């Protein structure tokens, strides 16, 4: 006799207890059930067998079955509805805007169009102002050619210089990337014109001074615009498509891990603060902020609110002070700084002042710890100082600046270590990449590109299809993957 391909040897074995199991599952028809019950009543051994199965089945019923919290179900349903709505809107738009075009022709058209509009808008914005520095002139030139563009994207400071003296408010420029991607360059330029004419020289900006907003604009555009992200990752030798998909999956995974209070789970209180700050940094790395209006912006909003409430308290007079010794204040400082920088154009003056005050408090703690901490924690303490300096909230002392530069030099010497675990390699990539991008050591950039090529694929492979890191530390791995377009 030929056995069916979907059966197993043990499935075909004699099954004396099979009717008992079917009875247990209510799978016998009325006649078979009555017949079996009569047999059981007459046969104590059979009855004992049935009892044994019943006990096992009762025990099995007790086995843990996880249940979702009510809030999780509501949040998940809302997330699914918004995700699918966005997909359906995007599908409608593409169908409407690009009928019957061949793939390659559309890509070529988009590519040419984008280059034209980017150069056009830049030319428009630069028109009428005089270059004031050699660095500014070179940055402008850098934006005009492919090879030079590579230099410009690798060094955001140069790119920022190109914007610095154009008297553009960052709020307008922050939309440039999205608007260009939608082919709205002309209308954008028209909208900008009145603003350009009305902005005065050295208009004071909150917290950061004149040089800050332009750097933020560059960062914001690059973090939020897929084209710019891909371009930059391509130049660095990353598999841009794979990297962006991995980051997207990772963010989706992490977003689902957020607790209703805005925090992310940790082993204890301190770890929860660290995990929340790290996870927020991953979202901020893709341009999501507490002032945005999208689903992922809401994740940042909840997380930032939790972090601020957890670390800082205010008395009746509104004076802020640290609530605890805040041993993880460094990572929290970096996260709060980034959110402040990326969103302060949307903040009221009072809110911006409040946040700057809080960051300054946290930064003091980070600075105080600098002399005593080592390893990864020292790295975060240094980043915290750098972030507060870039945000314009705190002026870094010469001694701390030297510490930062020493760390940058050390991080630049890191080499690939395939024997290390995922966390170590992600941290090393993050350290070296960030150090080199923050430094002005142009000679080290090729090394960083080699490093990136080596590690990007490994880092992507660490995430499973759901976006979760197989060995943990999803947020850290996303941060390492985002080094290419994080920019500061």
């Amino acid at each position, binding site marked *: 006799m030929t056995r*069916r391909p*979907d*059966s*197993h040897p*043990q*499935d*075909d*074995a004699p*099954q004396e*207890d*099979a009717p008992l*199991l*079917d009875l247990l*599952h209510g*799978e016998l028809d009325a006649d078979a059930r009555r017949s079996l019950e009569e047999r059981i009543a007459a046969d104590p051994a059979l009855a004992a067998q049935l009892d*044994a199965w019943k*006990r*096992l089945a009762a*025990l*099995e*019923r*007790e*086995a*843990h*079955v*996880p*249940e*979702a919290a009510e809030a*999780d*179900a*509501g949040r*998940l*349903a*809302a*997330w*699914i*509805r918004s*995700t*699918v709505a966005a*997909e359906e809107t995007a599908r409608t738009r593409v169908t409407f805007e690009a009928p019957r075009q061949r793939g390659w022709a559309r890509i070529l058209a988009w590519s040419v169009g984008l280059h034209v509009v980017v150069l056009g808008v830049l030319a428009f914005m630069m028109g009428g102002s005089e270059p004031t520095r050699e660095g500014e002139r070179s940055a402008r030139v850098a934006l005009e050619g492919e090879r030079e563009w590579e230099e410009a994207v690798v060094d955001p400071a140069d790119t920022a210089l190109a914007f610095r003296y154009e008297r553009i408010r960052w709020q307008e420029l922050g939309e440039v990337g999205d608007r260009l991607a939608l082919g709205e360059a002309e209308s954008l330029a028209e909208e900008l014109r009145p603003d350009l004419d009305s902005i005065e020289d050295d208009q004071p900006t909150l917290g950061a001074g004149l040089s800050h907003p332009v750097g933020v604009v560059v960062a914001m555009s690059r973090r939020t615009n897929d084209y710019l992200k891909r371009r930059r990752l391509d130049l660095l030798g990353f598999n841009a498509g794979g990297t962006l998909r991995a980051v997207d999956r990772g963010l989706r*995974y992490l977003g*689902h*891990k957020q607790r209703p209070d805005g925090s*992310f*789970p*940790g*082993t*204890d209180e301190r770890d*929860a603060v660290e*995990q929340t700050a790290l996870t927020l940094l991953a979202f901020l790395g893709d341009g999501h902020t507490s002032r945005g209006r999208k689903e992922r912006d809401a994740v940042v909003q909840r997380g930032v609110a939790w972090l601020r409430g957890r670390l800082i308290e205010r008395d009746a007079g509104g004076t802020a002070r640290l609530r605890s010794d805040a041993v993880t204040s460094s990572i929290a400082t970096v996260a709060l700084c980034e959110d402040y920088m990326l969103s302060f154009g949307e903040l009221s003056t009072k809110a911006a002042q409040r946040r700057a005050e809080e960051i300054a408090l946290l930064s003091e703690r980070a600075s105080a710890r600098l002399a005593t901490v080592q390893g990864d924690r020292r790295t975060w303490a240094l980043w915290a100082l750098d972030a507060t300096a870039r945000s314009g909230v705190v002026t870094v002392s010469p001694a701390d600046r030297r510490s930062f530069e020493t760390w940058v030099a050390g991080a630049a010497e890191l080499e690939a270590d395939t024997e290390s675990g995922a966390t170590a390699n992600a941290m090393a990539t993050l350290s070296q990449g960030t150090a080199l991008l923050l430094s002005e050591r142009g000679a080290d950039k090729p090394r960083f590109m080699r490093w990136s090529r080596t590690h990007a694929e490994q880092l992507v492979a660490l995430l*499973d*299809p*759901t*976006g*979760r*890191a*197989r060995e*943990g*530390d*999803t947020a850290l791995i996303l941060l390492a993957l985002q080094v290419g377009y994080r920019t500061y």
Partner: protein
Amino acid sequence: MADRDTELMLRVAAGDEAAFEPLVRSVLPRLLGFFRRLGADAAIAEDCAQEVLLKVYRARAGYTARARFTTYLFHIARNHWIDVYRHRKVGPRTVSADAFGDDEDGRGPELEGPSVPPEGTMGRDELLRALERAVASLGEEHREVFVLARVENLRYQEIGEILGIPVGTVKSRMHAAWRQIRARLEAEGIEPP
């Protein structure tokens, strides 16, 4: 008459977005249980459930109540498990720091205890864990039948429809699964109270 989940899904299919949340509330725990018992840890089970519900919502317009919604749902769930995990050989039992999200107290994932507990110390919890290990040790084909029948309380007929196999095969796999579980417990010296 259609069951409540089927009614909710029909409302979703007709464009009633408000019906989706109660539907998710109703089926999410069962989906989580399904993936957990197939071998996923809590984090992966959540992700799988999320993906399945996303697929259901994406395809909502084409839903027709040819069978109970549960049958439709677990057909998708089972295919998702095969696509993502079984065929790609992703280890579903990975334990990572990310799994800390599984428990509200943040203590982290439970580590598996010894397979054979010290004699005379078997408590209720240990007994249940031994049983979970026994279920987890089943082969894929037996385990999915067992989980659908025991965790989801589906009839053999429905399981056959979900898995695309005859009812007789469902039945024989179910019997074999029970026997293997019992054999495994007996091998550990365990007998249910």
